C-alpha cells in the first residue's frame, strides 16, 4: 500500500502503528501494535472479550464505573494516543488477573458471574472467550483453574489480503471515478493526462470533478441515502415550519401574486408549480447544507456545528426572511439557489412559545437542529427523543445503539421488577445510560406529530431519565438553550465522528456498509473474515486520520478512498479456490449494481441522453428508495430488475443505432468507421468492424480491448452471425424496425441487416455486467 501511494506521488499515507478504529461497544479486533507490550492482549483478549463484554460497563460513565476495573475506550482518542490507552487497559486486566480467589484468578471468577459480579455471568467456562481470558491469566502469572485449550484464531495459510489482487489500471480508474462522482465519462484531455502521468495525474482531475455541479447532485443523493431527510412525512411546510412560529409565512405561496398570468388555467398551474418547488426546496435544505460545506471546502464537522442553515428564495419566504436576504441571491426567482442564513430566535404566538436564546439567534447546530432532521425523526410522549438519539449515534458516531442491545434474560420480568427499569435494571441501563442523556439534549423540541417541533415540556424534563448530557458529561444548565450546539461541539471533537464520515463516504462510493467484525469464533472461516475486517479498518482509520489532519475536508476522503486498494481492486491473478481465501476476499472489489439514478446518468453519459424511465414506480421496481418506507437500496438484481435491464437495453439501442447511422460519418458517436454496407468477410471490412467494436467496448463497457482480443472476437461473432443469419431469412424488411427508425428524420436503409445487427450488438453490450455494475 505504501508503495502504491508513493508511486502516485499523492500525499504520503503512513499507517499508524495502532491505526485500527475501535469503537465503543463494537466487538472489534485490534491490530497487532508494534508499540504495545502484549500482542496477545491486543489481538485476542481485547477484541474477542473486552470490547464485546466488558467495555460498555467498565468505563467512566458506564454502569460499572465504580468498580475496580475501569477501562478507557480507544475509540474516544485519536490514533496517536491509542497505544497508551491499550497499555493502560492491559495493565488494568493484569492487576485483576493477579488477584487470587479460591480456585482461580479474580478476573475469571468475576467474568463467570462470581463474587456478585454486577454484570452477571458474562462468559461461560466452556466458551472460547473464557478460554482466551484464562490463557491471558496464565500468561500474566495468575491463577487458572485448568490449562485451557486456546482456540485457533489465525490461519497461517492466509496471505496478505491484497496478494495477487489486480488493481484497476489508471484510465479505467479514472472512468470509474468520473462516472461515480459526476455521472460522466472522462474527457479526452483527462484520459491523456492519466495516460501520461498515470495515477499521479488523478488527484488534480478529481479536484476538478468535485467542483462540478453533477458531483454535488451525487453527494446530496448519497448522503440522503444515509440521513434520509428527503423522506419527510406530510406536507413539508407544515411538517417543518410550525404554526406557532411561522403561521404568517409558511403558506406564503397561497397568496403569491400570479395575476400577471392572464390565463386562469396557466395561473393555476403556475401556483401548483410554486408550491411544488417550495416544498422540494424546503425538503432539500439539509442536503444543501452538506453541499455548501463540501463545495466551500469548509470543515465537514459543520454538519453538526454550522451556525446557519441553507435557504432558497422560496424557503426564505417560508421563514419570513425573504426581504432581508433577497439581495444576496443571484436570482431571487430561482427556487433552488441556496445561501447560508442565521435565523433569529423563534417567536411564538404566545410568550410561552418564545425560544430562549442568549444571542438572539436560533441555536443552529448543523443538521442536528434543522427542522427537517427533527421532523424526519420525530418524538412521541413515550419515546422521549430516543429515536432522535438513536439516529444521532448512528449518523454521526457510527454507533448502532440497538445493535448493542443484548439479549435480556427476561425482559418482561425486568420491566415489571423495577420502578424505572431504564435507570435501575442493569440490562436496560447498559444502553439507556448512553442514550437518555442525549435524548435530554433534544428536550426543547418537544412537540408531537403535526403540532410543530420547538416547544418545552410542561413541568420540565423527565426526572426518571438520566440527566441531559453526553457520555458522562452533564449539560450545564446555562447551556440548555443551546443544548444541540453543545452536543455538536462534542461530536465534532469525538474521534468516532471522523471515522463515521469516512465510513459514510465508503458507503456512497460502494453502495455497501463497511464490514462488521466477525463474531462467531467457532466459524472455521473466522480468521479469514477477521483478516478482511482488519484490513478495511486499517484503511478507515488511516483515511480518518488524514481527514482530521486536512481540517475535515470531505473531498480528501473521497480521493483517499478512490486511491485505496478496496476501491481499485478489480480482479485476481490466479483462480481463488481456497475457501478461507475466498472468504477473506468476499467483500473486495467494487461490483456495485448501479442504482436507478446512477444508471440513468451513466446512460446519459454514454449515449447523450438518459433512458428516462427509471423514475417513480419503475425506480422502485429497480431497487430504488423512497427515503420513507423503503430506505435500503437493492444490491442484487431480481428477475424483475433483470427484465428492466432487458427493456432498457432494447429501448436505448433502438433509439440510438439508426439515429447514429443517419448522421454524417464524422458526426457519429458510435459508428464512424462503418456504413450499412460494411459487411463481415473481407479483411478491410472486418478491421473496420473490429475497430467499431473496440470503440463500443470502450464507451459502453469501459474496456480497453485490442482488435484481435477474445473479447472483441466474441462481439464480432455475434455481429457476423446475425448478418449471416439474416441472409437466409425470408421476407425480411430492408429497413430498420419502424419503432427504431420513426424518430430519425431520414433513416438509412438496412438492406444487409447490419443496422439491426449493430443494434443487437449494442443491446448485448448494455446487458453485460460492465455496463450495469460499477
Amino acid at each position, binding site marked *: 500500500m505504501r508503495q502504491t501511494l508513493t508511486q502516485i506521488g499523492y500525499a504520503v499515507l503512513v499507517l499508524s502503528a495502532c491505526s485500527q478504529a475501535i469503537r465503543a461497544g463494537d466487538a472489534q479486533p485490534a491490530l497487532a501494535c508494534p508499540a504495545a507490550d502484549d500482542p496477545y492482549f491486543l489481538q485476542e483478549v481485547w477484541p474477542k472479550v473486552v470490547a464485546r463484554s466488558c467495555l460498555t460497563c467498565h468505563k467512566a460513565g458506564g454502569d460499572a464505573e465504580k468498580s475496580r476495573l475501569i477501562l478507557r475506550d480507544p475509540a474516544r482518542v485519536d490514533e496517536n494516543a491509542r497505544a497508551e490507552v491499550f497499555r493502560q487497559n492491559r495493565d488494568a486486566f493484569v492487576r485483576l488477573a493477579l488477584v487470587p480467589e479460591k480456585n482461580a484468578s479474580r478476573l475469571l471468577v468475576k467474568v463467570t458471574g462470581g463474587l456478585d459480579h454486577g454484570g452477571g455471568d458474562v462468559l461461560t467456562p466452556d466458551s472460547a472467550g473464557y478460554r482466551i481470558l484464562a490463557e491471558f491469566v496464565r500468561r500474566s502469572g495468575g491463577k487458572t483453574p485448568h490449562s485451557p485449550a486456546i482456540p485457533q484464531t489465525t490461519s497461517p495459510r492466509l496471505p496478505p489480503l491484497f496478494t495477487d489482487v489486480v488493481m484497476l489500471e489508471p484510465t479505467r480508474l479514472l472512468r470509474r471515478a468520473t462516472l461515480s462522482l459526476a455521472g460522466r465519462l472522462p474527457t479526452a484531455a483527462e484520459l491523456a493526462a492519466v495516460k501520461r502521468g498515470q495515477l499521479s495525474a488523478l488527484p488534480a482531475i478529481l479536484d476538478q470533478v468535485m467542483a462540478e455541479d453533477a458531483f454535488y447532485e451525487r453527494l446530496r443523493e448519497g448522503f440522503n441515502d444515509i440521513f434520509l431527510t428527503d423522506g419527510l412525512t406530510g406536507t413539508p411546510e407544515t411538517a417543518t415550519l410550525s404554526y406557532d412560529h411561522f403561521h404568517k409565512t409558511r403558506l406564503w405561496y397561497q397568496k403569491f401574486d400570479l395575476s400577471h398570468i392572464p390565463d386562469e388555467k396557466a395561473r393555476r398551474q403556475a401556483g401548483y408549480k410554486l408550491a411544488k418547488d417550495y416544498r422540494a426546496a424546503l425538503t432539500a435544505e439539509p442536503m444543501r447544507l452538506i453541499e455548501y460545506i463540501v463545495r466551500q471546502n469548509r470543515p465537514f464537522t459543520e454538519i453538526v456545528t454550522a451556525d446557519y442553515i441553507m435557504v432558497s428564495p422560496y424557503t426564505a419566504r417560508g421563514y419570513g426572511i425573504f426581504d432581508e436576504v433577497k439581495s444576496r441571491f443571484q436570482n431571487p426567482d430561482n427556487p433552488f439557489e441556496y445561501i447560508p442564513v442565521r435565523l433569529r430566535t423563534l417567536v411564538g404566538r404566545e410568550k410561552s412559545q418564545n425560544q430562549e436564546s442568549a444571542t438572539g439567534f436560533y441555536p443552529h447546530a448543523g443538521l442536528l437542529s434543522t427542522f427537517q432532521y427533527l421532523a424526519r425523526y420525530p418524538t412521541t*410522549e*413515550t419515546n422521549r427523543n430516543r429515536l432522535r438519539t438513536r439516529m444521532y449515534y448512528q449518523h454521526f458516531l457510527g454507533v448502532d445503539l440497538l445493535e448493542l442491545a443484548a439479549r435480556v434474560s427476561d425482559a418482561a420480568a425486568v420491566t415489571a421488577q423495577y420502578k424505572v427499569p431504564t435507570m435501575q435494571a442493569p440490562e436496560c441501563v447498559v444502553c439507556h445510560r448512553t442514550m437518555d442523556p442525549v435524548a435530554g439534549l433534544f428536550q426543547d423540541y418537544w412537540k408531537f406529530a403535526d403540532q410543530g417541533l420547538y416547544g418545552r415540556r410542561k413541568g420540565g424534563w423527565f426526572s426518571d431519565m438520566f440527566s441531559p448530557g453526553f457520555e458522562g458529561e452533564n449539560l450545564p444548565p446555562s447551556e440548555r438553550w443551546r443544548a444541540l450546539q453543545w452536543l455538536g461541539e462534542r461530536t465534532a471533537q469525538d474521534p468516532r465522528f471522523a471515522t463515521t464520515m469516512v465510513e459514510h463516504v465508503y458507503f456512497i462510493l460502494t453502495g455497501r456498509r463497511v464490514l462488521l467484525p466477525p463474531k462467531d469464533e467457532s466459524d472455521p472461516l473466522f480468521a479469514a473474515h477477521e483478516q478482511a475486517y482488519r484490513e478495511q479498518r486499517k484503511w478507515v482509520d488511516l483515511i480518518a486520520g488524514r481527514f482530521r489532519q486536512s481540517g475535515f475536508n470531505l473531498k480528501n476522503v473521497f480521493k483517499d478512498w478512490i486511491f485505496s486498494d478496496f476501491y481499485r481492486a478489480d480482479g485476481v491473478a490466479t483462480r481463488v479456490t481456497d475457501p478461507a481465501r475466498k472468504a477473506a476476499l468476499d467483500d473486495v472489489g467494487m461490483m456495485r449494481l448501479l442504482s436507478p439514478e446512477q444508471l440513468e446518468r451513466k446512460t446519459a453519459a454514454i449515449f447523450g441522453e438518459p433512458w428516462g424511465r427509471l423514475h417513480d414506480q419503475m425506480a422502485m421496481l429497480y431497487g430504488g428508495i423512497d427515503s420513507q418506507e423503503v430506505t435500503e437500496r437493492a444490491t442484487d438484481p431480481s*428477475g*424483475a430488475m*433483470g427484465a428492466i435491464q432487458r427493456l432498457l437495453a432494447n429501448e436505448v439501442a433502438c433509439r440510438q443505432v439508426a439515429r447514429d447511422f443517419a448522421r454524417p460519418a464524422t458526426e457519429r458517436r458510435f459508428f464512424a468507421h462503418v456504413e450499412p454496407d460494411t459487411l463481415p468477410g473481407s479483411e478491410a471490412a472486418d478491421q473496420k468492424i473490429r475497430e467499431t467494436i473496440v470503440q463500443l467496448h470502450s464507451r459502453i463497457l469501459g474496456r480497453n480491448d485490442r482488435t484481435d482480443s477474445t473479447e472483441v472476437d466474441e462481439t464480432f461473432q455475434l455481429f457476423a452471425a*446475425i448478418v*449471416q443469419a439474416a441472409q437466409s431469412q425470408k421476407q425480411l424488411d430492408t429497413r430498420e424496425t419502424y419503432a427504431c427508425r420513426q424518430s430519425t428524420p431520414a433513416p438509412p436503409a438496412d438492406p444487409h441487416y447490419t443496422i439491426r445487427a449493430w443494434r*443487437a450488438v449494442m443491446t448485448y453490450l448494455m446487458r453485460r*455486467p460492465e455496463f450495469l455494475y460499477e
Partner: protein
Amino acid sequence: MRRDFLKSCGLAGLSLAVPYVPPAAAEPIRPAEPYPGPYYVVFNASGGWDTTYLMDPKGISGINRLYREGDIRTQGAHRFAPNQKHATGGMSNEEFYAEFGAELLTFNGLDYSTNNHSPGARYMATGKLDSLAYPTFAALVAACRGATCPIAFLTFGNYSATGNLVAMSRVPYLPSLRTIANADAISGNTRTPFHDPFALERIEAALAAHHASRATQPRLPRVERGENMLYAAQVNSQALQRVTQYIPASIPKERLAQQAEIALASFKAGVCVSANLSIGQFDSHANNDKDQMKLIPELLAGVAYLLRRAGELKIREQLVVIIQSEMGRTPNYNAGNGKDHWSIGSALFLGRGIRGNRVLGATDGQQFAAAFDPAKLVVSPETGIRIRPEHLHQALREFAGIADHPMSQKFPLDVKAPNRLHQFFG
C-alpha cells in the same frame, strides 16, 4: 439441458465452467420452470401488536379495558378476545376464528427477548438477535427452494435482509409488472419484438457464452457472485411473462389486499416462493385500544383476503402463512391510554401441512411467558424452556425442509437438539 444448466446456476449461484461456444448455433434460452409451491407468506404487524386483543386474551388485572374475562370467546381449541363491537373496519376476531380457527395454530408465550423495534423485528424475521447478516426466513426459503424464480423473494417492508442468498424484489404496484413482463417486445406487444427471433436468440446465446467464458477466468468472489446473479436475473426475467395473465383488472384499495394480490399473482405464475407482507402503526403508545381495534381487524382482513383469493386461484393448498409481530404490549395502560413495549407475545400459523385448531404455549395472568416443553409441546415449569424466535425459526426450517440445506447451515441458529420444538406444526 439448457434449462438444467440455468437452473443450477441460479440455484447455487455457482460458477459456470462451460467453455466458450460461438453464438452461431444459437439455442433458445427458456426461463425456469414455474415454481409449484409451497408458497410462504409472512404477515408482519409492524410496531408491536397487543396479543391480549387477539389470540391471548386476559380480561383481568386491568389488562384490557374493552372486555372482561367472562367475555372471552372460544372457537374449538382457541380462546380469543372479542372485538366485534369495537373493531373499526376490517375483520373481527369472531369472524376470523369462525372461518379459519380450524386451520389455525397459535403459539402464546413467545419470548421476544427485547423491547426494541429494530432488534425485535430482526430477531423475529431471522431467528437471530445479534447479527445483521442473517437472512429472513422468507428470503432463506426462497433461496433454498427457488432462487431461479424471477421474484423469488417479494417484500413489502419490515426487516428483509437476504444474507446475500437471493435478490429481494419490491413490486410497489401490480400493473408495473405488466410494463416489464414482455421486455423484449415494443410497448409490451409480443407481436412486435425489438429484435427478430433469430437475432434475439443469438444475443442470448452470446450472453450465455460470455458468461460461461467468464467462469473460466480468475475472478474476485464478489465479481463472480455479481455476474452470476445478473445473468440469472436476466434469464429468469423471461418467466415474468407468465404473471400478466394473473394481474386482476381492478386493484383492491386495502393495503394488505394490494400486497396479497401481487404476491398471489406471482405465486400463481410460478415466479415467486415467498412474500413478506406488512402493515405498520401497531406501536400504540397512545390510545392503545383505538389503534389496535383498527389495526388487528385490518391485519385479519388482509390474511382472509389472501386465503380467499388463493382459493379462487386454486393455490390455497400450497400456502403457508405466518402471522407475527416484533413485540407485544404491556399488561398495563400508560398515562396516555397507550401500552408500551412488552417482550412477550405470540405467533400464528396456518396452511399447508400445519395441523390447526391448536394453541401451544401460554402466558400467565400478568402476561409472563410460561416455560414450554419443546419435546412434549406442553407448558411445563419443570421441563420447559423459554421459547424464543430461534426455536420457531428452527421449527420453520425443519417444516420447510431446508434445515439441512447448505444455505441454512451457513446461518446456524444454535438450537440444541433437546431444545428443538418437536413436531410443532403437527
